[in-house]
């Protein structure tokens, strides 16, 4: 999940200074970004409209219509409780995205804030915070997720908390690195010199200048969080019934891979495509926003 961290950290250090139009041109030229954004847009639309476009109620149990093969009324068949697989896939997109975006919102907010505060005040604040980050980094993230899940009991909220706990340090570290270099910039000093309060310096001077590398990080992050959520669901400590999740569907489907491959496969494909979409978009955005990789 954090395999991308190093890359994002090393590549996005300096704050890019470019206008929007420039950005749009390069975005449109980037094949990755285009394919990625098309997939992501589709998945997002499906997730947003999920309650209205599912052909059946995704939680409706039909005990006499279990294990139906794909085709006919149920385009992708039914599962062990006779629930419509296609409807569950569509709802699953909504759940996955909800979790991923919640985690992103939380970690981006707190991670950025803490990283900025650490870099801004330095000294003890920074030391304490960064030692804390080091310690969280010293644990493999799944261990943390498992402990949190065990402590709080499985559920959507638990997944969000566990993933947020695992994710914020990376964000904080990145924000800190960006702000550390940024705070030496004269325009920040100019702000201080003309009496701008700290909060406004953060809001007006620091934040806008770290936004684009953070966005790249976020778009790569969504994919990784979706994968992490699926892994947690797969291990049985993720989002719980009656909410359908792709990871949970794969787990429930695996034991029946030979008799009913459509269960595990449909969710795997949905998950895979979504992951590819977010990864391509993230890559593309990085190419577009990162000054170092320009012209490539």
């Amino acid at each position, binding site marked *: 999940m954090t395999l991308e961290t190093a890359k994002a950290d090393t590549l996005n250090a300096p704050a890019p200074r470019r206008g929007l139009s420039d950005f749009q041109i390069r975005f449109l030229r980037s094949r990755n970004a285009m394919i990625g954004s098309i997939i992501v847009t589709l998945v997002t639309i499906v997730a947003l409209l999920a309650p209205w476009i599912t052909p059946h109620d995704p939680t409706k149990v039909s005990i006499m219509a279990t294990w139906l093969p794909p085709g006919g009324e149920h385009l992708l068949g039914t599962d062990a409780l006779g629930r419509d697989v296609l409807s569950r896939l569509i709802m699953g997109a909504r759940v996955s995205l909800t979790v991923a975006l919640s985690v992103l919102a939380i970690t981006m907010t707190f991670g950025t804030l803490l990283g900025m505060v650490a870099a801004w005040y330095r000294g003890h604040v920074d030391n304490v915070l960064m030692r804390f980050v080091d310690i969280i980094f010293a644990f493999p993230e799944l261990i943390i997720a498992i402990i949190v899940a065990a402590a709080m009991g499985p559920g959507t909220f638990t997944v969000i908390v566990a993933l947020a706990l695992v994710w914020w340090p990376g964000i904080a570290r990145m924000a800190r690195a960006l702000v550390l270099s940024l705070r030496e910039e004269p325009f920040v000093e100019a702000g201080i010199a*003309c009496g*701008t309060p700290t909060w406004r310096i953060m809001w007006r*001077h620091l934040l806008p200048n770290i936004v684009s590398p953070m966005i790249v990080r976020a778009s790569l992050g969504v994919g990784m969080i979706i994968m992490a959520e699926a892994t947690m669901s797969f291990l049985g400590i993720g989002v719980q019934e009656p909410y359908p999740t792709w990871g949970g569907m794969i787990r429930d489907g695996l034991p029946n891979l030979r008799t009913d491959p459509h269960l595990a496969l449909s969710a795997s494909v949905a998950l895979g495509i979504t992951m590819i979409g977010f990864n391509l978009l993230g890559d593309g955005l990085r190419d577009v926003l990162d000054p170092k990789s320009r012209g490539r």
Partner: protein
Amino acid sequence: MTAPLLKLENISKRFRVGNKELAAVSDVSLDVAAGETLGIVGESGCGKSTLGRMILRLTDPSDGAIVFDGRDITRLSKRAMRPLRRDIQIVFQDPYASLNPRMKVGEIVAEPLVNIGMKRAEIAARVAEVLKVVGLPAESADRYPHAFSGGQRQRIGIARALAVKPRLIVCDEAVSALDVSVQAQVLTLLRDIQRETGVTFVFISHNLGVVRFLCHRIAVLYLGRVVEIGTEAQLFETPQHPYTQALLSAIPEAGAGRRGRIPVPSGEIPNPINRRRVARFTCAVRVFRTNAAAKYPRLPQIRTDRPWRATFPGRMRKARIEHRKTKE
């Protein structure tokens, strides 16, 4: 004579670098009168920027006091400092880095105005006004800094500093990043502004020529201490300190004056971290080393209002000779 607007009293700034200590500014005392332009010159690394930053309280002095308008501001908290920021502004060296690329020019210039709680409508009017003062069209306010040239950007920086009608503006190498022709325009602008508004300038530069154009009085900073201070005329006509002389010789027109060529120190400036490493330009260092008691002698109060650092002429001469040798 009225009380000076800004008074620096025995200001020092030391940085810790590993186990060693770097004395960036040592025991500097300066007065700046209202409406005056004080130049601070010295080579890069001599501590002049640190001095400027201390006046703005962007860096806290290790020792000494900063008195602004009769009020000691050395230990004021950030919060307590804020209202005073209205009176002291700064123009930075780098016209590219000193403007936030994510803010429109109007927002940049408005920033200090927002900070003093000015109403929105008044802000817009004032922004337009200062943009006009610095010679930029009013439409500039809606554009981002990257759309402007270096000289224009520096005008934006000046406009920002002017916006709140400060009493003191510290110009930290304000023109050194600009082309010579643009430099002249900006300097003229600054002079005109002073004439109109009566603002006080502390003008920090490594370029004596630039300083000479603008400043009433000039302080020469070497290795963190003021080695000589005097009016523009005094300093350029009769430099007392060998370092001043050396500096002057670096300017073709000044150096070609009456004194003839003065050997220009070349090579690296002595490393203020570790004085033992001083290799070439050893004169001042020798003095410090050989006379521990007079290690940091005070500037003698000379009636002419022109203090200069007491040195030991005999040794100084010797140093100069040594320097020649090394050069040959």
